[in-house]
Protein backbone atom coordinates (compact mmCIF):
# COMPACT_ATOMS: atom_id res chain seq x y z
CA UNK A 1 0.00 0.00 0.00
CA UNK A 2 1.46 3.33 -1.09
CA UNK A 3 0.12 6.81 -0.60
CA UNK A 4 1.43 10.28 -1.51
CA UNK A 5 -0.27 13.61 -0.88
CA UNK A 6 0.95 17.12 -1.68
CA UNK A 7 -1.32 19.64 0.05
CA UNK A 8 -1.66 23.33 0.85
CA UNK A 9 -3.82 22.91 3.96
CA UNK A 10 -2.21 22.48 7.38
CA UNK A 11 -2.60 19.06 9.02
CA UNK A 12 -2.02 17.30 12.33
CA UNK A 13 0.22 14.32 11.53
CA UNK A 14 -1.16 12.18 14.39
CA UNK A 15 -4.79 12.78 13.45
CA UNK A 16 -3.80 12.10 9.85
CA UNK A 17 -2.19 8.76 10.74
CA UNK A 18 -5.11 7.76 12.98
CA UNK A 19 -7.56 8.40 10.13
CA UNK A 20 -5.40 6.87 7.45
CA UNK A 21 -4.76 3.71 9.39
CA UNK A 22 -8.45 3.32 10.27
CA UNK A 23 -9.25 3.57 6.55
CA UNK A 24 -6.39 1.25 5.54
CA UNK A 25 -6.27 -1.39 8.26
CA UNK A 26 -3.04 -3.38 8.08
CA UNK A 27 -2.98 -7.03 8.97
CA UNK A 28 -0.98 -8.28 11.94
CA UNK A 29 2.11 -8.86 9.80
CA UNK A 30 3.32 -5.32 10.38
CA UNK A 31 5.15 -5.42 13.69
CA UNK A 32 7.01 -2.14 13.19
CA UNK A 33 5.97 1.38 12.21
CA UNK A 34 8.51 4.19 11.87
CA UNK A 35 7.40 7.79 11.42
CA UNK A 36 9.15 11.09 10.81
CA UNK A 37 7.54 14.52 11.03
CA UNK A 38 9.40 17.63 9.87
CA UNK A 39 8.07 20.84 11.36
CA UNK A 40 8.81 24.46 10.46
CA UNK A 41 11.33 25.84 12.92
CA UNK A 42 11.42 29.49 13.91
CA UNK A 43 15.18 29.68 13.32
CA UNK A 44 17.60 28.73 10.53
CA UNK A 45 21.31 29.41 10.07
CA UNK A 46 21.33 31.71 13.10
CA UNK A 47 18.38 33.89 12.05
CA UNK A 48 14.83 34.11 13.35
CA UNK A 49 12.34 33.02 10.70
CA UNK A 50 8.74 34.26 10.85
CA UNK A 51 7.25 32.59 7.79
CA UNK A 52 7.95 30.27 4.91
CA UNK A 53 6.68 29.74 1.39
CA UNK A 54 7.18 26.33 -0.19
CA UNK A 55 7.33 26.39 -3.98
CA UNK A 56 7.13 23.10 -5.86
CA UNK A 57 6.93 21.64 -9.37
CA UNK A 58 3.32 20.45 -9.71
CA UNK A 59 3.23 17.06 -11.40
CA UNK A 60 6.90 16.22 -11.02
CA UNK A 61 6.62 16.49 -7.24
CA UNK A 62 3.96 13.79 -7.05
CA UNK A 63 5.76 11.62 -9.61
CA UNK A 64 9.06 11.87 -7.78
CA UNK A 65 7.49 11.13 -4.38
CA UNK A 66 5.66 8.13 -5.82
CA UNK A 67 8.90 6.86 -7.34
CA UNK A 68 10.74 7.22 -4.02
CA UNK A 69 7.95 5.52 -2.07
CA UNK A 70 7.75 2.62 -4.54
CA UNK A 71 11.54 2.12 -4.40
CA UNK A 72 11.46 2.01 -0.58
CA UNK A 73 8.54 -0.42 -0.50
CA UNK A 74 10.47 -2.72 -2.80
CA UNK A 75 13.91 -2.38 -1.19
CA UNK A 76 12.70 -3.03 2.37
CA UNK A 77 9.64 -5.22 1.62
CA UNK A 78 7.40 -2.70 3.36
CA UNK A 79 3.73 -3.46 4.00
CA UNK A 80 2.84 0.22 3.48
CA UNK A 81 4.42 3.64 3.05
CA UNK A 82 2.95 7.12 3.23
CA UNK A 83 4.30 10.59 2.42
CA UNK A 84 2.40 13.84 3.02
CA UNK A 85 4.05 17.18 2.16
CA UNK A 86 2.82 20.74 2.51
CA UNK A 87 3.26 23.45 -0.14
CA UNK A 88 2.44 27.16 -0.11
CA UNK A 89 2.47 29.40 2.99
CA UNK A 90 3.64 27.71 6.19
CA UNK A 91 3.73 29.14 9.71
CA UNK A 92 6.25 28.29 12.44
CA UNK A 93 5.53 25.04 14.32
CA UNK A 94 3.35 23.72 11.49
CA UNK A 95 4.22 20.25 10.14
CA UNK A 96 5.78 20.33 6.67
CA UNK A 97 6.36 16.65 5.96
CA UNK A 98 5.12 13.32 7.29
CA UNK A 99 6.81 10.03 6.33
CA UNK A 100 5.45 6.75 7.71
CA UNK A 101 6.39 3.15 6.89
CA UNK A 102 5.03 -0.20 8.08
CA UNK A 103 7.18 -3.32 8.09
CA UNK A 104 7.39 -6.77 9.69
CA UNK A 105 10.60 -5.88 11.55
CA UNK A 106 11.98 -2.76 13.14
CA UNK A 107 15.35 -2.57 11.38
CA UNK A 108 13.64 -2.34 8.00
CA UNK A 109 11.16 0.25 9.29
CA UNK A 110 13.89 2.50 10.72
CA UNK A 111 16.12 2.16 7.65
CA UNK A 112 13.31 2.74 5.16
CA UNK A 113 11.85 5.75 6.99
CA UNK A 114 15.21 7.48 7.24
CA UNK A 115 16.24 6.68 3.68
CA UNK A 116 12.89 7.84 2.29
CA UNK A 117 13.23 11.11 4.19
CA UNK A 118 16.80 11.67 2.95
CA UNK A 119 16.00 10.93 -0.68
CA UNK A 120 12.93 13.17 -0.45
CA UNK A 121 15.07 16.03 0.83
CA UNK A 122 17.63 15.54 -1.93
CA UNK A 123 15.41 14.88 -4.95
CA UNK A 124 11.80 16.01 -4.47
CA UNK A 125 11.30 19.36 -6.25
CA UNK A 126 10.41 21.67 -3.35
CA UNK A 127 12.06 25.02 -2.60
CA UNK A 128 11.81 26.94 0.66
CA UNK A 129 11.69 30.73 0.77
CA UNK A 130 12.00 32.14 4.28
CA UNK A 131 10.72 35.45 5.65
CA UNK A 132 12.94 36.90 8.40
CA UNK A 133 11.95 39.19 11.30
CA UNK A 134 12.90 42.33 9.34
CA UNK A 135 10.51 41.33 6.55
CA UNK A 136 13.25 40.35 4.09
CA UNK A 137 12.93 37.08 2.19
CA UNK A 138 15.59 34.58 1.11
CA UNK A 139 15.68 31.26 -0.68
CA UNK A 140 17.09 28.44 1.40
CA UNK A 141 20.02 27.36 -0.76
CA UNK A 142 20.76 24.02 0.84
CA UNK A 143 19.30 21.53 3.25
CA UNK A 144 20.70 20.88 6.69
CA UNK A 145 22.81 17.69 6.73
CA UNK A 146 20.89 14.52 7.54
Amino acid at each position, binding site marked *: MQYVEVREAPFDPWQYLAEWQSQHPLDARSGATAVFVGTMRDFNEGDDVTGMYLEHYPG*MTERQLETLVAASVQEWSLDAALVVHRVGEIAPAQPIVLVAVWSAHRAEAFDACRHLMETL*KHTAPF*WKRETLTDGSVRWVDKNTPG
Partner: protein
Amino acid sequence: MPIKVLFFASLRERIGQSQRLLESDMPLTLQEVWQRSSGESHLPGNVLMSINQTYANASSLVQPGDEVAFFPPVTGG
Protein backbone atom coordinates in the same frame (compact mmCIF):
# COMPACT_ATOMS: atom_id res chain seq x y z
CA MET B 1 5.31 21.03 -31.27
CA PRO B 2 7.30 23.50 -29.15
CA ILE B 3 9.45 22.50 -26.18
CA LYS B 4 7.95 23.82 -22.94
CA VAL B 5 10.67 25.18 -20.64
CA LEU B 6 10.04 25.85 -16.93
CA PHE B 7 12.19 27.66 -14.34
CA PHE B 8 11.64 27.40 -10.58
CA ALA B 9 12.44 29.23 -7.35
CA SER B 10 15.62 31.38 -7.23
CA LEU B 11 16.48 30.40 -10.80
CA ARG B 12 13.05 31.59 -11.97
CA GLU B 13 13.72 34.93 -10.30
CA ARG B 14 17.24 35.26 -11.72
CA ILE B 15 16.19 34.32 -15.28
CA GLY B 16 13.18 36.60 -14.91
CA GLN B 17 10.64 34.15 -16.34
CA SER B 18 8.80 31.08 -15.15
CA GLN B 19 7.98 29.50 -18.50
CA ARG B 20 8.72 29.84 -22.20
CA LEU B 21 8.01 27.89 -25.35
CA LEU B 22 10.96 27.03 -27.58
CA GLU B 23 10.38 26.24 -31.23
CA SER B 24 12.47 23.39 -32.62
CA ASP B 25 11.77 20.71 -35.16
CA MET B 26 14.73 18.60 -34.14
CA PRO B 27 16.07 17.13 -30.89
CA LEU B 28 18.22 19.38 -28.71
CA THR B 29 20.40 18.60 -25.70
CA LEU B 30 19.34 20.08 -22.37
CA GLN B 31 22.50 22.20 -22.58
CA GLU B 32 21.23 23.67 -25.86
CA VAL B 33 17.74 24.18 -24.48
CA TRP B 34 19.27 26.07 -21.52
CA GLN B 35 21.29 28.34 -23.80
CA ARG B 36 18.34 29.14 -26.07
CA SER B 37 15.78 29.65 -23.29
CA SER B 38 17.72 31.26 -20.43
CA GLY B 39 19.79 33.76 -22.41
CA GLU B 40 22.85 32.50 -20.50
CA SER B 41 25.64 30.66 -22.31
CA HIS B 42 26.97 28.94 -19.17
CA LEU B 43 24.88 26.25 -17.48
CA PRO B 44 25.85 26.41 -13.77
CA GLY B 45 26.97 23.07 -12.32
CA ASN B 46 24.45 23.13 -9.47
CA VAL B 47 21.39 23.60 -11.71
CA LEU B 48 19.13 20.53 -11.72
CA MET B 49 17.09 19.63 -14.81
CA SER B 50 14.33 17.32 -15.91
CA ILE B 51 12.66 16.09 -19.09
CA ASN B 52 8.96 15.23 -18.84
CA GLN B 53 9.21 15.42 -15.03
CA THR B 54 12.08 12.94 -14.75
CA TYR B 55 15.63 13.97 -13.77
CA ALA B 56 18.06 14.25 -16.69
CA ASN B 57 21.49 15.75 -17.38
CA ALA B 58 22.95 18.38 -19.67
CA SER B 59 23.61 15.95 -22.53
CA SER B 60 20.16 14.32 -22.40
CA LEU B 61 18.16 14.74 -25.61
CA VAL B 62 14.96 16.79 -25.68
CA GLN B 63 12.33 16.05 -28.33
CA PRO B 64 9.87 18.59 -29.75
CA GLY B 65 6.79 18.58 -27.47
CA ASP B 66 8.74 17.66 -24.34
CA GLU B 67 8.40 19.50 -21.03
CA VAL B 68 11.76 20.60 -19.66
CA ALA B 69 12.56 22.24 -16.32
CA PHE B 70 15.63 23.91 -14.77
CA PHE B 71 15.78 24.48 -11.04
CA PRO B 72 18.15 25.09 -8.12
CA PRO B 73 19.05 22.43 -5.50
CA VAL B 74 15.86 21.28 -3.79
CA THR B 75 15.16 22.15 -0.16
CA GLY B 76 11.96 20.38 0.83
CA GLY B 77 11.23 18.11 3.75
